[in-house]
C-alpha cells in the first residue's frame, strides 16, 4: 500500500491551503483515499499557515502529518521548523526566492525553485504555490495524471473559471523547472 504524506507550509496568503486542497482533490479524482488538515491555531494567526495532506491507496489513519514524505517550504521559518521532520529519503521543495539557505539534510532530495520570482516574471504573482506544485507533480511523476485539470475545476469556483487556464500555466511552468 502506497501512502504519501505532504506538509505544506508558508505565510498566510501564499496559497498553502489552496495548494493542499488541489492535491487532495487530484487524489480523490484518481481514486485514492485522501485527507486535508489545516493549521488553524495560534501559529496561523501569527502569519504562518501549514496544512497536512495524505494521499493513500488504503484508509487514512491519523490525518496529522508529523513525518512528511514531501515538505513544501514557502518561507524560511517553514524550512527551519520542519526540515528535520522529513523522513529519510523524502523530498523538500523550497521557494528559493524567499529562502536563501539550502537544507542541512543530506539524506533527502531537495529542490530549489525560485517560485515567487517566476510567478511575478510571468504575470501571475499570486501563483508561486502552483509553480512549486507543478514541480512536485513532475518529480513524483504525477503531472500527466487525468486528475490535474479535473482537480483545478473542483478547487476553482465557476465564478473564477477564467483562472483555470492561468493556474494550469503556472503548474506547467513549475513542471518545466
Amino acid at each position: 500500500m502506497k501512502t504519501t504524506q505532504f506538509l505544506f507550509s508558508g505565510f498566510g496568503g501564499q496559497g498553502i491551503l489552496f495548494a493542499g486542497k488541489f492535491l487532495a482533490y487530484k487524489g480523490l479524482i484518481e481514486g485514492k483515499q485522501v485527507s486535508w488538515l489545516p493549521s488553524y491555531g495560534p501559529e496561523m494567526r501569527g502569519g504562518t499557515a501549514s496544512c497536512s495532506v495524505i494521499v493513500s491507496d488504503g484508509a487514512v489513519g491519523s490525518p496529522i502529518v508529523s513525518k512528511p514524505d514531501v515538505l513544501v517550504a514557502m518561507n524560511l521559518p517553514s524550512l527551519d521548523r520542519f526540515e528535520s521532520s522529513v523522513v529519510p529519503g523524502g523530498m523538500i521543495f523550497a521557494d528559493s526566492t524567499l529562502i536563501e539557505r539550502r537544507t542541512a539534510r543530506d539524506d533527502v532530495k531537495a529542490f530549489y525553485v525560485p517560485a515567487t520570482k517566476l510567478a511575478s516574471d510571468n504575470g501571475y504573482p499570486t501563483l508561486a504555490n502552483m509553480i512549486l506544485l507543478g514541480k512536485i507533480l513532475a518529480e513524483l511523476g504525477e503531472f500527466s495524471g487525468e486528475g490535474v485539470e479535473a482537480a483545478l475545476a473542483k478547487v476553482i469556483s465557476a465564478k473564477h473559471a477564467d483562472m483555470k487556464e492561468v493556474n494550469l500555466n503556472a503548474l506547467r511552468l513549475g513542471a518545466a523547472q
Partner: protein
Amino acid sequence: MSEKVLMKGNEAIAEAAIRAGCRHYFGYPITPQTEIAAYMAKKMPKIGGTFLQAESEIAAINMVYGVSSAGLRVMTSSSSPGVSLKGEGLSYLAGADLPALIVNVQRGGPGLGGIQPSQSDYFQATRGGGHGDYHMIVLAPASVQEMAELTVKGFELADQYRLTSMILADGTMGQMMEPVALDDLTVAPMPEKPWATTGTGMKRPHNIVNSLFLQPEELEKFNFERYERYAKIEANEARFEEYRMDDAEICVAAFGIAARVSKNAIDEARKQGVKAGLIRPITLWPFPKAPFRRAAEHVKAMISVELSMGQMIEDVRLASECRVPVSLCNRAGGMIPSPDQVLEAILGAAKGGN
C-alpha cells in the same frame, strides 16, 4: 456509490442536518466550529429555514427549546466553553423530554482554554452536562463521513427516544477535509410528535412542555420513567468499531481523532510483532460495554488513548470490570498524542509494564 466531495467536518455536519430535515439553527460563533454557523447562515434562507445568531449561547439553547416544543428538528452548535454556557438549557431540555441536536467541537480547557483540539468534555457530555438525573445520547465521529452520518442518526435517535443527542467532535474533526458521499445518507421519516405544542384546534386538551414539577412524587415518577427509556437506549443503541481485535493481546480504547492516531500505532505494533487492536466507541453514552467485557477475556492489558487527563478510562475500567490493567496514554490542553507515543505505550504494555 454517489459522487464524493471534499468537505470540512463542520460543513458536513451542517449539510447533513439540513438533509435530515433540520430547518432551524441557533448559534453563537466560537472557534473551531464556526463553519457550521457560516454554512447555515448561507443555506437556511434559501430553503425557507431559520438561521439566527443569538446574543449568547444561553439564548441559543433556549431558542432550541422553543422550536423543539413545537415538534420540529432543531440544532445548535458550539465549542467547549460555549457548551458549558448551554448546560442549564440542556438540563431543561432533558426535564421536558425534548429532542434536539447539540454539537460540541471540543477545544482545550478548562476555562476559556485554547482553540486546539481536545476531548476533555467527555465527562460533561456523557454525564449529562447540566444538573439533575439525565443523559444525552453522545455520538463520537472519527471521519468526515461519520460527521455527516451521525448527525442524521443523532436527529433520528433524539426523536425516537425524546432526548437530546450530542455530537462530540474535536477541532481536528471539525477542520479537516475528507471525501464525503452525501447522497448515500438515508433519513428515516420523522415520527409523529403528539406531545408537540402546535395548537389544539379545539379538538384536544392542551399540550404542556415543562420541566417544573413541585410535587416530589410526580417528579420522581418522571425520573423513573425517563430511566426506563435510558435502559432501552443502553440495551439497543450502543455502537462501536473493532479494529484488528480478533487475536489482540493489547486492546487500545480510543474515539474520534485519538482512534485515527491509534490505528497507525496498532499497524506499526503488529509490524513489530505485538498483536494490538482497537475498540472505538462510536456512542460514548450509551458506552459500548460488551466489546470491552469480551476483550477482557483475552487481552493482557488495555490502554485508553485520550486528548484529556483521562476521562473515558473510567468507563473502560468499569466495562472491563477491572479484569485487566488499564493504563492511560494522553496529551492535553490542545495537544494530540502522536502515533509514536501510542506505539510506545502499546510496546510497554506488551512487555508487562504500565
